[in-house]
């Protein structure tokens, strides 16, 4: 136990002595892992948003209050008869308010300023084929009950076609950035070994075993990886918190589940530590032979 504590102590003394190089490595790992983590979160954002759209709400027809529910029902029946429409349903003011409260559940100040009367009723439309959204749009142009028509199809189409590409790019980024983190740490450890080559020679002379010499470097590499991973996780959490505050349209959300964020943050941290371990082991392999 005392030997292990001694080795940890040695690792941290070494980190302090090479503070500049270690800081550089931490920052480089941070950038690599933040990009990788960011790619994961972006992918999830795309997935969540396209999933929502694919579940149905391709068009939202916000209605004027004139005519009341009776006129609204007539329009709903009319829309349901359109050949492009798979399904259409009516959301009254109370429903809109409930939805609003759900979406802005974490912003009670905003929710307190809005009442059900402030929100328009709407008709939500699911299309058979997303690409036919413009035909529906044309049919409704100039309708007296139409307050505003929100069309997500164009974005959806683009995003849906992009999702596959984004997934591949995201995966590629994760692999590439992960590999660069490993290489960076390996390089840092090699520099540390080179800087301490005389000390290492002395350690060997007094009978220090390979592992006795290696363990502090491995702890050093893992610490660099963990710090870089920790900073990356913190940066992505902070960016996500900022994004959440951006006012968005009712169906576009810049937030992902906290559980998702937490699990990926743990993954990134673990990867940082692992990258440090692998990187330092690689760095040590050639340079530390008795």
């Amino acid at each position, binding site marked *: 136990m005392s*030997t292990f504590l001694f080795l940890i102590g040695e690792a941290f*003394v070494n980190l302090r002595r090479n503070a500049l190089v270690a800081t550089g490595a931490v920052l480089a790992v941070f950038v690599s892992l933040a990009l990788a983590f960011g790619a994961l979160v972006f992918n999830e954002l795309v997935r969540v948003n396209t999933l929502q759209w694919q579940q149905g709400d391709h068009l939202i027809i916000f209605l004027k209050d004139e005519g009341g529910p009776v006129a609204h029902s007539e329009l709903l029946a009319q829309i349901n008869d359109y050949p492009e429409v798979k399904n259409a349903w009516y959301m009254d003011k109370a429903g809109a308010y409930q939805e609003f409260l759900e979406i802005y559940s974490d912003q009670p100040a905003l929710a307190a300023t809005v009442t059900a009367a402030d929100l328009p009723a709407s008709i939500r439309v699911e299309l058979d084929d997303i690409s036919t959204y413009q035909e529906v749009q044309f049919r409704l142009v100039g309708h007296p009950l139409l307050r505003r028509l929100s069309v997500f199809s164009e974005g959806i189409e683009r995003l849906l076609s992009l999702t596959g590409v984004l997934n591949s790019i995201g995966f590629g980024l994760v692999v590439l950035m992960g590999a660069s983190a490993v290489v960076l740490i390996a390089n840092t450890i090699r520099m540390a070994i080179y800087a301490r080559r005389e000390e290492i020679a002395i*350690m060997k*002379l007094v009978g220090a*075993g*390979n592992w006795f010499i290696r363990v502090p470097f491995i702890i050093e590499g893992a610490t660099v990886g963990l710090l870089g991973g920790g900073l990356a996780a913190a940066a992505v959490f902070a960016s996500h918190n900022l994004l959440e505050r951006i006012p968005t349209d009712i169906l576009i959300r810049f937030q992902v589940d906290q559980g998702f964020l937490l699990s990926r943050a743990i993954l990134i941290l673990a990867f940082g530590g692992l990258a440090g371990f692998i990187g330092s082991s690689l760095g040590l392999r050639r340079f530390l032979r*008795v």
Partner: protein
Amino acid sequence: MIRLHNVAKVYDGGVVAVQEVSMDVRKGEFVFLVGPSGSGKSTLIRMCLREEKVTRGKIWVAGKDITKLPTWRVPYLRRTVGTIFQDFKLLPTKTVAENVAFALKVTGCPRSIVRRQVNTVLELVGLSAKTDRYPRQLSGGEQQRVSIARAFVNRPPILLADEPTGNLDPATSVGIMRLLDRINRTGTTVMMATHDFAIVDAMRRRVVQLDRGRVVRDQGESGYESSEET
């Protein structure tokens, strides 16, 4: 305690450092290796530590054939052989006590024993008042005393010294030799490579003279030059 049998060392490029050296060093003996620069003294010491591998022949240290020793066993060999060098080889970022303690810590020795043994050995070398100093804050003689303390702290049966007085003035060298003599009297075998004829002449111990990698003289209780020559 140390036995060399027909040992030869040829470096890459065909440079012959040691050839056909055979010698026995008994337990508790004090042996000087003398000879001009390039005669193979340091190479012999390095081979006894397995810092260099022999090209031919065999070396036994403390009863073990170290030419067959697997790499992972080399640190264990080095824990049974204390080493002292001309350039002291102290860790500059560690204090006197930490430098000495390091030789025990690498063996996984408990902290309480480390502390006790370090204090004892630093008292033996006369540095108990300077335990918290760093090597740069010490004189050359004091640094060599730390080096001796580190070499002796785990009571090795063998001490190898490569020009331990090479960087020191004559008066300080005498102090270092007295220390090595005291350690030798405790039963520790000492093999020391040196150029310092004054020390060799004063100590009158066994002298093994090397020239161009060969043993040209092996004489007990001798001086730097052969008794026949003087």
